[in-house]
């Protein structure tokens, strides 16, 4: 790459935070450069300092931080720049795309107003000219109806549209560098694929550089020309994406790549489950959120039938809003069933004759054989309770155990989920996300349930942590032989765990069958699109997949 194309040059950049009178180094000696038309990906797990690095370029860090080293934009030093000069750089030369467009856009102003505001801040234009330009930008980010989007408030747009609107705002001043901080993490896979397409085409059209910050190796493989792998504030490896994906040198990079679930690497399902006795079956299940005031009733789940056999893992996949979580919550009795039959073992719990209701005594028996693992390990444990008490709670409530039995079982469970038994007196905030999720699993298994319902148990975790939790999950499932309904949006994770897969869309199951059939030979259009949109952590393979996906879209 020639020097003339070089836009940003970062040399020996270090960032310290003063915390409680101690100095903590968040980023240590980062050096990299970015050229025109290039995508540089900074990858790493949470806390690795990847966002901090990017934020420091335009001094967006909190006041207890100190940046040292050098970062030059077109030869202009950014470190230690005055606020007045920084304002000219921010937005105009360096623009940001944030993870969560709902919080990054101001909810009380229209999209159009916010873009016009950004334009008038940097250019001396009339309101009319700015509006024209804003409409142009909204068209550029391929929003279906720019006029309408211009007058819309953020909440009136879908997640993907919001992200497009934010990108429109970011590129409004023709920035030289676009810093995208986890731009697609909050989005569904199919929407993510579209946004990545958009960013790729914009980069070429605007001839700017992109610094992509992400933890998702699939996204990196899809987008990046070069990449930097960060761990604990240090760049452990850098190079072209092909180099790093194909021949990672640093052990951390190797480990990171190995822990990414890769679609298509799951072992073929064993044939058990097909003939096995059914543990739970739901037939023609309909779940509605009742009407509230003027808001009409919403049918979240519409006529689905699933069956889970003994020791079988059924993966339930779908995008946000497809109703998969609703199914899980209804099956543990947290939501009322509108109509349909729910049978556990030989006993019918909800059916037409019973008015689709589960009566109180039945519900107790029903839940006795169920465990549930929630998505957010931060919210699923009572912050005021030591985790041992949380694990013991289901046993105490069942009143079937003596104190000594509970005591012994808690220790046994902690052992099973590979946590030191001394952790029982710790509070949730003293544990990491992965440890908390292990506690959540231990609690769900406390009563030795026949069926475990896991609602996105790993989606809030880092890849390497996710890998270890999934491994634990597999081991436990094998040892204890419980059946499992595994709800996830991540096809690769489902591929790893499940025997059978059901794909949901708009409250219906579009396709259901053995794993092999769904993943390798999907019949339905939606399943095909969903599979095609999943980025694979391998640049070459991903390029092929991208072409295939575009073909599929026509």
């Amino acid at each position, binding site marked *: 790459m020639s020097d003339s194309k070089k836009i940003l040059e970062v040399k020996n950049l270090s960032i310290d935070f003063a915390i409680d009178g101690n100095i903590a180094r968040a980023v240590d000696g980062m050096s990299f450069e970015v050229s025109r038309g290039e995508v540089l990906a900074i990858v790493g797990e949470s806390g690795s300092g990847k966002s901090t690095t990017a934020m420091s370029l335009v001094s967006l860090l909190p006041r207890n931080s100190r940046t040292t080293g050098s970062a030059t934009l077109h030869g202009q030093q950014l470190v230690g720049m005055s606020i007045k000069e920084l304002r000219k750089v921010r937005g105009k030369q360096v623009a940001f795309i944030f993870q969560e467009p709902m919080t990054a856009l101001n909810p009380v102003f229209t999209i159009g107003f916010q873009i016009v505001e950004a334009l008038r801040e940097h250019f001396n234009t009339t309101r009319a000219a700015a509006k024209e330009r804003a409409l142009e930008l909204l068209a550029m980010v391929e929003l279906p109806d720019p006029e309408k989007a211009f007058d819309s408030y953020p909440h009136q747009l879908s997640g993907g549209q919001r992200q497009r609107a934010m990108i429109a705002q970011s590129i409004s001043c023709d920035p030289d560098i676009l810093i995208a901080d986890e731009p697609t993490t909050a989005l569904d896979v199919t929407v993510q694929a579209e946004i990545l397409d958009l960013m790729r085409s914009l980069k070429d059209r605007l001839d700017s550089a992109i610094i992509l910050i992400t933890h998702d190796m699939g996204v990196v493989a899809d987008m990046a020309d070069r990449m930097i792998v960060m761990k604990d504030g240090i760049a452990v490896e850098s190079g072209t994406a092909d180099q790093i994906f194909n021949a990672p040198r640093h052990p951390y990079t190797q480990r990171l790549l190995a822990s990414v679930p890769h679609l298509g690497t799951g072992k073929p399902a064993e044939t058990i489950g097909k003939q096995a006795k059914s543990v739970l079956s739901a037939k023609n299940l309909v779940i509605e959120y009742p009407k509230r005031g003027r808001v009409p009733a919403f049918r979240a789940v519409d006529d689905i039938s699933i069956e889970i056999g003994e020791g079988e893992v059924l993966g339930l996949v779908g995008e946000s809003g497809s109703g998969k979580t609703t199914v899980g919550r209804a099956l543990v009795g947290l939501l009322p069933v509108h109509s349909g039959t729910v049978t556990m073992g030989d006993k019918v719990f909800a059916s037409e004759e019973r008015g689709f209701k589960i009566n109180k005594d039945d519900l107790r028996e029903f839940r006795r054989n169920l465990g549930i693992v929630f998505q957010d390990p931060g*919210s699923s444990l009572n912050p005021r309770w030591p985790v041992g*008490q949380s694990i013991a709670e289901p046993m105490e409530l069942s009143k079937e155990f003596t104190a000594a039995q509970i005591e012994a079982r808690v220790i046994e469970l902690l052992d099973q989920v590979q946590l030191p038994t001394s952790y029982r*007196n710790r509070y949730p905030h003293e544990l990491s996300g992965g440890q908390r999720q292990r506690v959540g699993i231990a609690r769900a298994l406390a009563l030795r349930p026949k069926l475990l319902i896991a609602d996105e148990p790993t989606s809030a975790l880092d890849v390497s942590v996710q890998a270890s939790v999934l491994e634990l999950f597999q081991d436990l499932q094998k040892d204890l032989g419980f059946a499992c309904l595994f709800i996830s949006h991540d096809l690769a994770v489902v591929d790893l765990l499940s025997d059978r897969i059901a794909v949901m869309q708009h409250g219906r199951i579009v396709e259901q069958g053995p794993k092999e059939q769904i993943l390798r030979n999907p019949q339905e259009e939606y399943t095909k699109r969903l599979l095609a949109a999943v980025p694979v952590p391998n640049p070459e393979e991903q390029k092929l997949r991208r072409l295939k996906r575009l073909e599929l879209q026509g």
Partner: protein
Amino acid sequence: MSLDAQGRETTIEQEATIGLSQGQVIWKRFKKHKLAVISIFVLATTIILAFTSVGIVIGGNGQLVVDKETLLLRPDGWYIKGWWQWDWFTVGAKDLVNGAPTWNHPFGQDDIGRDIFARVMRGMQQSLLVTFIVGFLSTAIGVVLGSLAGYYRKWTDSVIMRVADIILIVPVLVLGAVLGRSVGGGALFLAIMLGLVAWPGLARLVRGEFLSLREREFVDAAVVSGASARHIIFKHILPNSIGVIVVNTTLLMSAAILIETSLSFLGFGITPPDVSLGQIINEYQTAFQTRPWLFWYPGLFIILIALCINFIGDGLRDAFDPRQRRDDFTKEGFFKSLFGGKKIEADHDEVIVGTTQRENI
């Protein structure tokens, strides 16, 4: 080494794995908040001092009557004398012309020779009575109604909140004055009346806490394990809203002293010949410049009570909050330990982040 429930010996490692009950943990942490512990002692001492020194009156209408046997004035009701040689109502000769403090009357005397120490002690009895009854009543009502409204929502919520709204729009001062007056009977009734109208604020806060906490997944997890509404309210949600409740209660209790003072100032509430701290200040406000002891001593005790209550509240809140850091005694020993160590604010699902330094480095 110690013995566990089964009589087996437990080693140190095992001891670390023995589950502690919530109560034990909270007491352990409360003890670390030195100032709160000191405040408990100070408050207890003050209470004992107030009630033993000048004696107590049980029942009665707050007026003075002539004793049939001794033919001296005494309070109406059952009067038990204390160990202090003076009482708060007997008029006597002044040691000094202006009534300044002497060995005989350490807090001084007022213009008609009544002992100020005795009057302050009696006033403190009344103020403490009002404070604690208001604090207890309004917290109990507020927590119960707020919990019910927040947990059950729907019509329960509507009914309770409309009642709360009605009480909120009537000024407490006016309501307290009218009710206290019409029922009569001094501090006790005044306190009960105030307690009955002071709960809506707390009820609203508790309801808000419940509305947000009941959506958390640990509540769902408990529901799935078959927990009853009672279990969820008392074991899961209330302990998580204890901070709000404790802080609000201490504020209410301090406010109760002030309301009582205001009412007494307006001529309602506790009226002469009975005494309250607020009423003493009010009575002697003109003496502020010339005879400050008439003013400062009751004022000092108001501050003392309010401070103690606030510190205890502070200690309780920290003790109930497990995110409080456990060992923070390594540096800057005394002051830090006085305030129970530096508090770390962290969201329930966030990694702990330290406090931000003020200056730009």
